[in-house]
């Protein structure tokens, strides 16, 4: 399953995008507000100094411009600090701050007015400055005087950048924290679904038969529906099998009666009737066994222990063939699982074991293992075995090599058919024990 196709991935991704966008918008808004606030702070500062400057200005009786005191901020004494003030009259400098040195502030094309105007301009050493300009007539007989006071724009930018760095770092931590919270939340919220998914895997593997009932209220309807579906599925299979059993009963009883009656007949029709009943019987067995076969490993609850099936069948064989005193060697069967329906496995193993018991002198060996991702089940005997060229023939239904041994010759044919329905195959060869080795190759569990 691709990660991108999971519910958790979708929730986490969407939450992540939303958190990122929200944090970026918030950061931009905060940085913008801070810039505005810082600019206002600088402006208030400069405006205060400008008013100080205006308040301290006067002309002497001889018409010389004087300042009663210089603006108090020590930054006006630092050379090229960006903090400057200047008083101009008719384009000439009357007074300027020590920080400006011999330079002058050039307003370019900007015409000063009697209201304070805020501009940005290039000062000495191409510094970007925020300048407050106002023109005032201090003495009626004097030309109006232009007052300029500046603050370095770089200071504002640095303050804003510093602030922005802090909030970006803070927001990254916040974003990671939120994402962690989302991941934890998703894990906790999806835990019941994960538990259901795990249980479904267990059901599929045959380790459980139903989903646990005690679920959260939101999930309970889903669990109930799935359990109902499982029950319905099991009931359908059981009903179908029971009906097949009834059908077998209702067909085979009259067939047995006809067959037995024909055996006592004297007429020429006896052989014909016996042959026909034999054919009908074979067909009934063939189609009943096909109909009974689940024949797929892709069903829920479809895993079955080979050891359990074999032990049950060995018990049956020991009862049926108790006069033979056969020795059954169950090579390690633990941990071997059949991916499919238990009854199908029992039909295959039962027929192979029955065949092996019929022919064995004293020993029947059963083994299993996996090879190249396939399950291999071996059933061997120490009987006479069969010739290589007969292997194909005996797997056809109704084929019996020795009519003196009871049976209908259906066993290996049934095994071959069921095995094929599971996408596997039945292979016959000579066993190390001397008799026949039947090997079932099936998809592994």
């Amino acid at each position, binding site marked *: 399953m691709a990660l991108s196709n999971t519910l958790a991935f979708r929730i986490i991704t969407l939450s992540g995008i939303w958190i990122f966008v929200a944090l970026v918008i918030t950061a931009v808004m905060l940085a913008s507000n801070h810039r505005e606030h810082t600019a206002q702070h600088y402006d208030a500062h400069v405006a205060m100094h400008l008013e100080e400057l205006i308040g301290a200005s006067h002309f002497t009786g001889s018409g010389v411009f004087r300042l009663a005191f210089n603006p108090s901020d020590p930054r006006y004494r630092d050379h090229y600090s960006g903090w400057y003030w200047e008083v101009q009259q008719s384009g000439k400098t009357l007074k300027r701050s020590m920080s400006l040195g011999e330079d002058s502030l050039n307003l370019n094309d900007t015409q000063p007015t009697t209201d304070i105007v805020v501009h940005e301009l290039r000062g000495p050493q191409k510094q970007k400055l925020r300048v407050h300009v106002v023109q005032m007539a201090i003495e009626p007989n004097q030309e109006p005087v232009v007052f300029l006071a500046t603050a370095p724009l770089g200071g504002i930018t640095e303050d804003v950048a510093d602030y922005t760095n802090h909030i970006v770092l803070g927001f990254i931590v916040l974003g990671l924290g939120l994402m962690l919270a989302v991941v934890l939340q998703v894990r906790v919220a999806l835990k019941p679904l994960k538990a259901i998914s795990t249980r479904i895997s267990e059901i599929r593997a045959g380790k459980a038969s139903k989903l646990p009932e005690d679920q959260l209220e939101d999930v309970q309807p889903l669990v109930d529906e799935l359990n109902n579906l499982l029950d319905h599925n099991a009931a359908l299979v059981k009903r179908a099998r029971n009906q097949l059993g009834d059908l077998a009963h209702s067909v085979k*009883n*009259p067939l047995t009666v006809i067959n037995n009656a024909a055996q006592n007949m004297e007429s020429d029709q006896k052989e014909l009737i016996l042959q026909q009943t034999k054919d009908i019987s074979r067909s009934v067995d063939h189609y009943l066994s096909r109909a009974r076969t689940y024949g797929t490993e892709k069903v829920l609850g479809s895993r079955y222990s080979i050891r359990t099936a074999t032990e049950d*069948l060995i018990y*049956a064989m020991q*009862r049926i063939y108790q006069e033979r005193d056969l020795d059954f060697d169950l090579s390690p069967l633990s941990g071997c699982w059949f991916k499919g329906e*238990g009854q199908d496995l029992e039909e295959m193993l039962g027929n192979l074991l029955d065949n092996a018991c019929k022919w064995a002198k004293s020993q029947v060996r059963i083994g299993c293992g996996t090879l190249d991702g396939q399950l291999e089940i071996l059933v061997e005997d120490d009987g006479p075995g069969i010739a290589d060229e007969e292997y194909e023939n005996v797997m056809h239904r109704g084929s019996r090599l020795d009519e003196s041994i009871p049976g209908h010759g259906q066993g290996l044919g049934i095994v071959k058919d069921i095995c094929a329905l599971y996408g596997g195959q039945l292979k016959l060869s000579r066993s190390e024990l001397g008799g026949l080795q039947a090997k079932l190759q099936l998809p592994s569990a």
Partner: protein
Amino acid sequence: MRVLIVEDNAELARQVKSTLEHERFVVDVAGDGEDGLFLAETEPYDSVILDLGLPKLDGLSLLQRLRRSGNEVPVLILTSRDTWREKVAGLRAGADDYLAKPFEFEELLARLEALIRRASGHASPILTCCKVVLDTTSARVTVEGNPVDLTALEYRTLEYLMQHPDKVVSKTELTEHIYDQDFDRDSNVIEVLINRLRGKLSTDLIRTRRGLGYQIGGVDGFI
């Protein structure tokens, strides 16, 4: 040997009964599970042939109840239900063998005789006592290699006694196993049969244990 057939298909039951009687078995038939259980619990059968799909009480339940009551009569399941799961269930419920329908009478007879033989502790179908040999598969009796003609009743009596060597078999037990349930058990026909067998085989083959019954062979006579 006395056999109970529990089979709801009347015609099939009749056929099996007829064949078994032809093979010198004494046969009773029950048409449903309840009758079958009653007969199996009250009459001493040597074997029971049991169908699984029965009215009133299914075959598996009948078998389980029979075994729970301690009855160990050999049971052969004869049924159309032929999956291995059903066979295992039947055998685990206490059946001794399982034969699926349709079947051949030869196989049914062979399995039935094997069951009865096993139940009485004989591995071979040939029973031998002194000079008398009884082949249960061919129903032939010989004395020192010479065939002896026996009636069905004589054969049943001899077979039952030879199946239970050394055992003192009461007249009642013998009657129960060689006659069906309608036989008048007070008649003296058993004494007549024993005398006829002594005449045809050997006078000292069957000993009378006064007040107890009859005994065949003996510790030193039976092989």
